[in-house]
């Protein structure tokens, strides 16, 4: 079992070195290497998950030869390992689903560059999930941003480059705030390892010194990560970045990149600031309000949108709002609901992006709704998958979205003051979700004599298989929610 302790570090290094190796390979070689690495990292994470789940503890892995306050550490429990496994699964499925589109969208001579970015993205996500050092987390946040920017701009259309520029600017604002927050925290505590900062912060809070600096620091770090993960008032870059990049990129950006930052934020809340101090600070009320605003505003913007990709992107803004609303509730039930929603949203949003591209492909590459009429008959498989994704986002039982809404409302009931607004906004947001998703589903199932050719499942088996896996993942999350919430609760309990 000693061997398994090396797996998290090994998986980070594996994905990073594969990025270096890919630069020397041709497109196809880089693609195969990437598939192999994502699968291998998934397998390693699965082993780690099994190991940590059986023992029920979290482990510290010392990087290099310097022990705790000076050296760098990796720390992993079952939640981290499970999240890494989940990220690998989503990444593999998103890449497979968008493979055909990717070949059309990018220059074949640049294919290996795309996979370099994907490998880098994977390694930075893994590092964000596993690291126990705040400054290492900052460095990997930046690597994540650069890799994500590469994924957006690989299309080389004017729109994509402009979207990448706007994405970079907003992200850098976020990481600047995060950096100065982290420097202030280092200044107050004298540590960089998350667990050590955590104990110092608890001491500071008990002594009552540095009250305002601590509050400012928490605010800076939380706002920085909120900008990067596109919480409502900072979401302006999101629809362009998701809407004009190639479909695999959009799926990975919405379900992995923003979720990586949110996972880091959860880690900071539990391990660095301490859950009680975070709850007692007034920041959570701000998060709660902006989360609620995002749930409404994201959905309203999505209703107004006439482009299917941008509509799905705006729906992401609403879903990120749900996650921050869960943080804002300030109970551990709210946190469990948020973590579950990270999984549910990642599984559903990538399904929607991938199935959406199937629908636009049989509509002459048009993304406008008028052209999409009846497209579900032209590509049956994508139509069904899109319907499943929509039902899940609306929150129909049997699918993952229902469970997260259920968990959110259960968590909301526990907190007295925030119960009413949370429940009302949940209800309103569900109705709004239903309006734009059902509108789309009805539109794609409206029979029409079309000028576009239809396609069948046999023509693209890989795509159909990917959609099937996504649907299975979604239904799995919806049906077996109890073991998953147990796992999240157990993982969060050994998190601090």
């Amino acid at each position: 079992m000693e061997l398994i302790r090396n797996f998290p570090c090994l998986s980070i290094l594996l994905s990073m070195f594969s990025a270096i190796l890919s630069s020397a390979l041709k497109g196809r070689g880089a693609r195969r290497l990437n598939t192999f690495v994502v699968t291998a990292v998934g397998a390693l994470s699965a082993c780690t998950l099994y190991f940590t789940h059986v023992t029920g503890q979290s482990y510290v892995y010392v990087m290099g030869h310097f022990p705790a306050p000076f050296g760098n550490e990796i720390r992993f429990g079952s939640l981290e390992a499970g999240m890494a496994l989940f990220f690998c699964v989503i990444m593999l499925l998103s890449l497979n689903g968008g493979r055909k589109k990717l070949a059309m969208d990018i220059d074949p001579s640049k294919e290996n560059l795309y996979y370099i970015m994907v490998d880098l993205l994977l390694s930075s996500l893994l590092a964000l999930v596993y690291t126990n050092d705040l400054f290492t987390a900052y460095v990997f946040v930046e690597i994540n941003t650069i890799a994500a920017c590469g994924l957006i701009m690989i299309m080389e259309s004017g729109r994509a480059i402009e979207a990448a520029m706007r994405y970079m600017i907003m992200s850098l604002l976020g990481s600047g705030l995060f950096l100065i927050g982290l420097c202030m925290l280092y200044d107050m505590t004298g540590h960089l390892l998350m667990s050590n900062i955590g104990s110092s912060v608890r001491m500071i809070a008990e002594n009552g010194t540095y009250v305002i600096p601590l509050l400012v620091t928490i605010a800076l770090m939380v706002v920085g990560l909120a900008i990067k993960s596109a919480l409502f008032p900072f979401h302006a870059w999101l629809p362009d970045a998701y809407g004009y990049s190639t479909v695999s990129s959009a799926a990975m950006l919405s379900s992995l990149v923003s979720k990586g930052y949110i996972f880091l934020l959860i880690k900071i809340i539990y391990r660095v600031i301490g859950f009680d101090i975070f709850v007692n600070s007034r920041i959570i009320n701000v998060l709660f309000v902006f989360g609620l605003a995002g749930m409404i505003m994201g959905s309203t913007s999505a209703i107004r949108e006439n482009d299917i990709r941008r509509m799905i992107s705006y729906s992401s803004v609403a879903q990120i709002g749900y996650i921050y609303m869960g943080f804002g509730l300030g109970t551990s039930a709210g946190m469990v609901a948020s973590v579950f929603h990270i999984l549910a949203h990642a599984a559903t949003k990538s399904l929607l992006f991938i199935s959406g591209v199937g629908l636009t492909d049989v509509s002459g590459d048009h993304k406008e709704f008028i052209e999409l009429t009846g497209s579900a008959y032209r590509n049956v498989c994508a139509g069904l998958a899109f319907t499943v994704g929509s039902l899940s986002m609306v929150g129909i039982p049997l699918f993952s979205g229902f469970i997260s809404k259920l968990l959110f409302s259960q968590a909301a009931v526990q907190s007295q003051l925030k119960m009413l607004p949370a429940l009302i906004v949940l209800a309103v947001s569900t109705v709004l979700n239903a309006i734009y998703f059902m509108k789309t589903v009805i539109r794609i199932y409206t029979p029409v004599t079309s000028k576009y050719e239809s396609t069948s499942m046999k023509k693209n088996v890989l795509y159909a298989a990917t959609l099937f896996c996504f649907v299975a993942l979604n239904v799995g999350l919806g049906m077996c929610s109890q073991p998953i919430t147990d796992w999240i609760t157990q993982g969060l309990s050994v998190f601090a």
Partner: protein
Amino acid sequence: MGEHLLVNYAEVVAVALFGIGFTNLLLQKNMIKKIIGLNIMDTAVYLFLAEKGYIEGHMAPIVVNGDLNPDTYINPVPSGLVLTGIVVSVSVTALLLSLTIRLYRRYHTLDLDEITMRLKKEGL
């Protein structure tokens, strides 16, 4: 309240510079000015770190004559952080500049809002 501002003047300068850089990165229309803002913002953080790591009267953290007493030297960790931060900000700046060149070649302007307007008009 006021007297702390005078004692910790370097931190005050650093935070003010951070604010200037942040606003520039956020509000300027010109992309080059945005990038300058980014660099001011990052450099302000390094100033903050360097000031925090410096201890009056202590030496640079290089061991001479086998003197291992920690009271002789300044804190070396912030310097390490500054170095890492510089590497990060250089690479990000390079990426932003390359994006700027791409956009300039295509649209012959550095004004990001104008590029957005033109893209919307083209309807691409």
